[in-house]
C-alpha cells in the first residue's frame, strides 16, 4: 500500500513540472512585458527593475529560478498590483473559494447519491422521474444560466436572500446558499444519474440475487451488499467533479460577486496580470492533482480486487 502511494505521488511530479513549464513560457511568450508602459524611466531605474524581476538573466536561468521559487511556494510578484505579491492575493481569496467548493461538492455528493439510490430503488415511480428531471436540468442547463435565474427568482423577485454578498464581507451566512446550489447543480445531475444506473446494474447483478436467495432483508441488501459496488463509479467520477467545481467557481464567483480565487482569476486575465493568472492556475492544479490522488487512494481502498503494486 505504501509503495502504491509513493508511486502515485511520484507520478504527480511530471504533471506538475509540465504545468509550471507551460505557465512559465506562456508568460514569457505573452505580448507586452509587465513594465512596457513605463518607457520613459531612466535607464538605471529600468535596469534596477529588470534586476528585481530577473529579466536581465538568460532565459534558462530565469526558468530555473522560477521553478525554484515555485517549489519553495513563492509565486512571485504581481505585475499589476505593487503592494503585495501573488501569494498574498491568493491566500486571501482561497479560503472563500474553498468553503464554497467544499459545500458545493458536499451538496452534490450527498443529494446526488441519495436521489440516485432513491430513483433506482423506486424505479419508474414519481420519485424516480422527479429526481431524474432535476438531474437532467443540472446537466443540461449551464451554471451561468442557473445562477442568474436563481438570483432573479429568489433574490430579485421573492427577496428571500440578498442578490450578492459573502459571509466574510457582511457576516450573512444565507448568501452562501444560492452560489452553492448553482455550483453543485451539474455535479448533482451527473452523480444522481451515475448512482441510479450504477445501482440498477448492481441490483441486477448475480451477487445481489444470491443475497436475496439467502433471505436477507432488502434494506440490508441495499446498504451492505449493493452500496459499495454502486459507489465505485461515483468515486472515480469525483476527480472530474472537482475539476468542474474549480471551473464553475470562476463563473459563480463572478455572478454572485464572491471575493474568491475564481473572481480574481477572471479579473487578472482581463488585466493581463500574468504572474497572478499563472499563480492561480498553479494553485488550482495542485489542488486538483491532490484531489485526484486522494480519489485514487480511496478507490483502491474501496475495491478489494485492486492490488497495490
Amino acid at each position, binding site marked *: 500500500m505504501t509503495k502504491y502511494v509513493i508511486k502515485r505521488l511520484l507520478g504527480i511530479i511530471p504533471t506538475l513540472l509540465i504545468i509550471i513549464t507551460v505557465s512559465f513560457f506562456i508568460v514569457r511568450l505573452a505580448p507586452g512585458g509587465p513594465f512596457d508602459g513605463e518607457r520613459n524611466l531612466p535607464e538605471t531605474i529600468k535596469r534596477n527593475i529588470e534586476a528585481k524581476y530577473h529579466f536581465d538573466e538568460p532565459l534558462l536561468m530565469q526558468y530555473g529560478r522560477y521553478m525554484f521559487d515555485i517549489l519553495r511556494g513563492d509565486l512571485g510578484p504581481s505585475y499589476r498590483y505593487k503592494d503585495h505579491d501573488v501569494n498574498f492575493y491568493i491566500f486571501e481569496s482561497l479560503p472563500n473559494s474553498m468553503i464554497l467548493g467544499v459545500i458545493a461538492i458536499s451538496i452534490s455528493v450527498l443529494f446526488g447519491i441519495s436521489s440516485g439510490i432513491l430513483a433506482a430503488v423506486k424505479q*419508474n415511480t414519481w420519485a424516480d422521474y422527479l429526481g431524474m428531471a432535476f438531474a437532467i436540468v443540472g446537466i443540461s442547463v449551464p451554471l451561468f444560466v442557473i445562477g442568474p435565474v436563481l438570483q432573479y427568482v429568489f433574490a430579485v423577485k421573492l427577496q428571500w436572500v440578498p442578490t450578492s454578498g459573502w459571509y466574510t464581507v457582511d457576516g450573512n451566512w444565507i448568501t452562501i446558499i444560492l452560489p452553492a446550489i448553482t455550483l453543485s447543480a451539474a455535479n448533482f445531475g451527473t452523480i444522481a444519474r451515475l448512482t441510479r444506473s450504477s445501482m440498477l446494474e448492481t441490483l*441486477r*447483478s*448475480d*451477487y445481489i*440475487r*444470491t*443475497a*436475496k*436467495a*439467502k*433471505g*436477507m*432483508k432488502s434494506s*440490508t441488501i441495499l446498504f*451492505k*451488499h449493493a452500496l*459499495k*459496488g454502486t459507489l465505485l463509479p461515483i468515486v472515480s467520477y469525483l476527480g472530474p467533479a472537482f475539476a468542474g467545481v474549480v471551473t464553475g467557481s470562476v463563473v459563480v464567483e463572478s455572478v454572485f460577486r464572491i471575493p474568491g480565487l475564481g473572481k480574481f482569476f477572471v479579473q487578472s486575465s482581463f488585466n493581463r496580470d500574468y504572474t497572478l493568472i499563472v499563480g492561480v492556475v498553479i494553485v488550482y492544479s495542485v489542488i486538483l492533482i491532490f484531489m485526484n490522488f486522494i480519489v485514487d487512494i480511496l478507490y483502491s481502498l*474501496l*475495491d*478489494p*480486487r485492486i492490488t497495490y503494486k
Partner: protein
Amino acid sequence: MKKNTNKGSAPLLDVRNLQTYFKTDEGIVKAVDGISFTLGEGETLGIVGESGSGKSVTNLSIMRLIQSPPGKIVGGQILFEGKDILTLSEKELRHVRGNEISMIFQDPMTSLNPFLRISTQMIETILLHQKMTKKEALKKSIDMLKLVGIPAAEERVHNYPHQFSGGMRQRVMIGMALSCEAKVLIADEPTTALDVTIQAQILELINELAKKLNTAVILITHDLGVVAGMCDTVCVMYAGKIVEKAKTEDLYASPSHPYTFGLIQSVPRLDKAQDGKLYSIEGQPPNVIDLPECCPFHPRCNKKMDICTYKYPPVKKVGENHEVACWLYADEKEKSST
C-alpha cells in the same frame, strides 16, 4: 442408492401449473407456461432442457426471485410443506429463502459479493436464520468450508472472493447454501461455468452432501449425462413447458417424446458406435414471444402430424410416474375434439 419417496405423505415441494411471463417490447414471453412437478424429502429431481427453455425461470420463480418488471408469476401454486410460497408475506418469504430452500447459481465468479470477505458473507447467512453468536457462526462457516473441501479453511475464510478459483468459489457457494441446513437445494447449472475436470467433483460434492444432510435437490442442467448419475426423477422442458416427466431409468429406457429421444441420442457415447457422427436435433429452439397454440417442437420434429401445427397436445400417462405431452400418445377422441 436412489431412494423411493413415501407415497402417503404430501410432497415437500409441489409446483402446480406455474406460469411466469415476461413483458418485452416485442411481446409477452411465456418463459414458463403451466408446469407442474413434485419433489419429495431427500429426493433429487433433474430439470433438463436447452437454453431458453425456462429451467432457470422455473426455479427463480420457486424462490420468487424473478425481476419484476419485466417478469411476473401470473398463475399457479408453489406449495412448500403445504404453504403456497406465492402468497407468503415478504417476511415469511425471507424465512423460506436460504433457510428452507437455498440455491446455488450458475456462475460462481459473479454470484459472490466481490466487495465482502467470505467470512462476512457466510456469517451473515448463518446469523440470519440461526440463533448464534458471531464467533459460533464463524466456527460454523469454517466447518462448512472444510466440509466442502476448502484447504486451510481457517485462513481462507477471511479472503475475498477474487482470491479463489472458480471451482473453489462454487464450493464456497455450496457451503454457504447448505450452512442453514435447508430442506431443498436448487442447483442452477452449478457446473456450466467450470472446467470439465472440476465439474464432476462439484456434482459429486452436491450429491454427497445432499445425502448426508438429507436435503432434497433440484438440479437444473442441459446435460443428460449428469442427470443419469444423480437424479431420481427427470423433467424435460421445451419452450416453457414440461414435455416429459419420468423416473430416470424409465426415461432412458423408453424415451417417449421425440424431443427426449433426440436429446438422449445426441449425448455422445463411447459404448455405442454411431458411425462416426454425432446425432443432433435440427433447427433452433423457438422464439417464445407470442407463441401460437401449437406444439412448439413441431418444426424440428421428425414425427410431426398435422394437428401438431395448431394445437398443443394433452399430457398423457404412458407408464407409472411417466407422463408425456405429445400427440403421438393421444386418443383419436382428443385429436378430433378441435
